[in-house]
């Protein structure tokens, strides 16, 4: 799993909400970059990266809650959770396919033949989830969660 990029300029003595704003802005940029990669690649590592970005953003909103207006924070967190869940199903089917393939690679040919129907059904499920993923990606683009998050960052920076 990728480690998030360090956020330049953070300091231990900095005001908590100012730091939260800087991190939120940096994580938004990462999400935007990874979303572009996912639109281009359609799955795999890019899908994993976007899911991790969403998870990190949710953690940030939970950890630094007092820095943000409560209603807007809750709404943003809920939106991130919904998007992550939609992407999670597609990711699960990728993981399932890879895990089964790893086991099959170690099986005797007769075992592989016998499990062909299981493998086929998992592939079919993955293809279906890939179609649903396109819907989730369209949602990710149209809802523009980063615009909402940038507003939260602005609020945190101005918080007294």
């Amino acid at each position, binding site marked *: 799993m990728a*480690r*998030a990029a360090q956020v330049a300029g*953070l300091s231990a003595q900095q005001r*908590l*909400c100012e730091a939260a704003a800087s991190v939120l802005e940096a994580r938004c940029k990462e999400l935007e970059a990874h979303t572009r990669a996912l639109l281009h690649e359609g799955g795999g590592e890019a899908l994993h990266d976007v899911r991790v970005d969403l998870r*990190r953003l949710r953690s940030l909103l939970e*950890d630094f809650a007092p820095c943000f207006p409560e209603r807007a924070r809750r709404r943003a967190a809920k939106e991130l959770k919904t998007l992550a869940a939609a992407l999670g199903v597609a990711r699960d089917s990728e993981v399932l396919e890879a895990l*089964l393939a790893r086991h099959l690679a170690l099986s005797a040919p007769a*075992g592989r033949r016998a*499990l062909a129907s299981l493998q086929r059904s998992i592939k079919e499920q993955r293809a279906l989830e890939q179609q649903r993923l396109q819907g989730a990606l369209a949602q990710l683009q149209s809802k523009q969660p980063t615009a909402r998050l940038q507003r939260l960052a602005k609020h945190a920076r101005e918080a007294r």
Partner: protein
Amino acid sequence: MRARAVAGLAARESLRKGAERIISTRLQELLELAPLALAGGEARALHDLRIAAKRMRYILELTGFCFGEHAEAAAASARAIQELAGAIHDYDLLLERIGAHATDFTRERGQALAVQAQGEVPPAAERADLATCAALGSLAIECQAQRALLLAQLRTRFDEDQRSALRRTLLAALRTRQRPARQGA
């Protein structure tokens, strides 16, 4: 599982002071969830433990520079817990899928046996059915064994010594008094 609110966190305090409160809260969550998850090895409890480890890891990766190298060690520990619990989750997914497939297959096999009772099943189809039964059973056993191994590794990592090491490491980190640190400067 919703994250616990961090008591006393104030918008105007320093990042270091706030991070201390957040890390302490997340550590408490992790340590409270561990006994149930590790004792029973139940999927839901392990999922909650994985999420708690993830939250812990993220805040440590973000603010660890305020607390020195101990925080980095604790972040690595949280990451290892998260990864082991994640690998168990992957096997849970596969086992669930094998179970669903076996249910479908059992129904089809029942229909085949009904036809066989009338003497109409060709031997090749019968052999293929039996091979599939055996292969599904073997795969499920293998997955259960791998899952058990991962759970044992997770327990080892999180046993009493490890747990207190994680706690000690973090408390030491939180007590470390460093000169004002900057990240990425």
